């Protein structure tokens, strides 16, 4: 498990002559291409996460409050597509988008966001649904008893209690959105994101820069995980129940 990581670290800190150097990292933070790609990946990931959250929260809420006999069916509706390989699902999205837009070539960014949202939506819905479902009904009833309106109950009781679900959903959507370049390729967005940039360095035999970018990405992921785990700390056992 650790060995491949060590190899990456070795390559990230050496150059083609085998000398130890941090020039690779210097190049990362001074090149417009890499910074631009980082920004572009972040923008995509933010957009995908935001759209997923906006769709997933009401859906999960509806799921959680629906009658038990419908709930299983509704839940299956979101889980069944996950049984199909994601490239096949994206191919289907491609056909639908071509039908709607006429040609995929005009809105590459929009198409990417739609494709990724479709792909990652279940990863947002399921944790939020789990955390909503676990809320003790008596807490909600208590809020009403103490005179809270429906809106106040939602904002002050339900929403805070579902935060761990939201956080884990966001991490599960945000991180893959930054690197999943297969979706981009399949939907013909020709602009690189982090994943494709790493791939392009590796196929050009430049393992040093490829590893360096992987390291940077790894660092970003660690930072994000640290931030989110702090948020979820108060309710750590809830976070175990992702799926």
């Amino acid at each position, binding site marked *: 498990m650790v060995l491949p990581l060590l190899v990456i670290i070795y390559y990230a800190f050496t150059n083609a002559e085998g000398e130890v150097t941090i020039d690779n990292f210097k190049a990362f933070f001074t090149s*417009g*291409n*890499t*910074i*631009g*790609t980082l*920004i*572009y990946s972040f923008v995509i990931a933010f957009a995908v996460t935001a759209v997923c959250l906006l769709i997933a929260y009401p859906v999960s809420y509806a799921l959680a409050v629906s009658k038990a006999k419908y709930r299983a069916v509704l839940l299956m509706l979101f889980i069944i597509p996950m049984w199909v390989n994601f490239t096949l699902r994206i191919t289907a999205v491609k056909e639908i988008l*071509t039908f709607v837009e006429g*040609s*995929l*070539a*005009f809105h590459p960014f929009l198409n990417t966001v739609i494709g990724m949202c479709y792909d990652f939506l279940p990863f947002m819905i399921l944790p939020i649904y789990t955390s909503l479902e676990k809320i003790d009904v008596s807490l909600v009833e208590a809020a009403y008893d103490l005179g809270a309106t429906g809106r106040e109950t939602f904002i002050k009781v339900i929403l805070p209690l579902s935060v761990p679900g939201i956080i884990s959903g966001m991490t599960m959507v945000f991180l893959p959105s930054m690197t999943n370049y297969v979706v981009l390729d*399949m939907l*013909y967005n*020709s*602009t*690189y994101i982090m994943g*494709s*940039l790493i791939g*392009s360095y*590796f*196929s*050009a*035999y*430049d393992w040093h820069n490829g590893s360096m970018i992987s390291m940077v990405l790894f660092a970003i992921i660690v930072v994000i995980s640290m931030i989110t785990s702090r948020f979820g700390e108060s309710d750590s056992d809830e976070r175990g129940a992702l799926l």
Partner: protein
Amino acid sequence: MYKKMLLIISLCLVSVFICSCDKKDDDVLTLRICNWEEYIDEGDWDEEETIDLPSGDIIGENSMIEDFEEWYEDTYGEKIKVEYSCFGTNEELYNQLTLGDEFDLVCPSEYMIMKLLNEDKLVKYDDSFYDASDDSNYYAKGVSPYISNYVKDIKVENVSIADYIAGYMWGVTGSVYNPEEVSEEDASTWKLMINPKYKRKVTMKDNVRDAYFASLGMLKSDELVKLFDDYKSGKITFDEYHKILNQEMNDEDPKTIQAVENLLQDNKDMFYSFETDNGKSDIVTGKIVTNYQWSGDGVFALDQAEEDGVYLNFAVPKECTNLWFDGWVMLKDGIGGDDRRKIAAERFVNFISRPDNVVRNMYYIGYTSAIAGGDDSTIFDYADWCYGAEDDEEDVVDYPLDYFFSGDSEGDEYVITAPREQLKRQLFAQYPTVDVLERSSIMEYCGGETTSELNQMWINVRCFNPFRK
């Protein structure tokens, strides 16, 4: 605890057993071959796919590899085992080799062969392999004179690659286009890709080498056309023309690379996509009207479209085209000094160069083999079987193929009488005319510095850069 111990002991025993098995089988030679994906007949044809040629029926029942193993034992009385694996791109193969994977025989493209030769990683074929008087030397007997002449002139630091390579498949690059949307004139130039009429309905290849070649074609369009005219009108000889063309299309000047970068930056919105495989299906379904394509995949797209009742054409740019080929080379790391291995590898090349096997591979893959067949007319018969006109067809043309089959471009021994539309369709893509091949150039292997400049150029084109002027 005991259970764990037992497990460990049994694992050890199993591994010892496996090792001893390996030793026992040591006299069976294992030949390690690495080829492109779906680039050899894998057998399992339907009965109705039988190709009925004058020389007999040809059908692929078993895979080519299985047939080779059987044939080897029958012919030479020795067992052989082929370890067959595949790669997706030349770069992938190269990375595998650098990571220490050992193969005896691989099939990369010409520029990668030049790179491998330059790095002294290849083993020469034996002189006896090229001896055409030996009946079992199907490659030497059958290779097209056109291809062997072409290969002879390709040199890496004054060493011709001809002694290291056995040609497999070859072709040119051009455009598959829908004649209802694009005129033949528009399609016959590299500038097709930046023609505003077809904005977002053309594709670019998703690799720096093919993109660079096409861009050079666009940048130097006028120059190249004039150069070809000069040759045609007799102002310069063919050799002079060819030398200049090769230089122009392998231009390594940083200024040219910069110009190509600018061209691609300014025009990347013109393309529907940067693609490797999807273009074939996108043109059949009508999402695009033209697709920059290698001739073999072009034939595939044309065939597919015909099944749906759509008739596409293939055009080669008037400026020039890229002649490419894939060839079998033996690797030093794999072969080592083992003569048995080397001979087995050579026998494999000869086996797949046997005319009936060539036809099987061509049918299965759709590309054009570098083998013409020599005295054996099976391969020509196959081309005729594919594209020759039916007896009752009226609008037919004579399509001379002597340049490929006999090497005499003036000859009239190998002529296919084909329906007129084949001048722009599969036959033309599979065996381009002499006229097209005259203006063909190969992509040479460029040195490390130019390679990294080109890669950087490609990253610049593909990345979002907020600081770009």
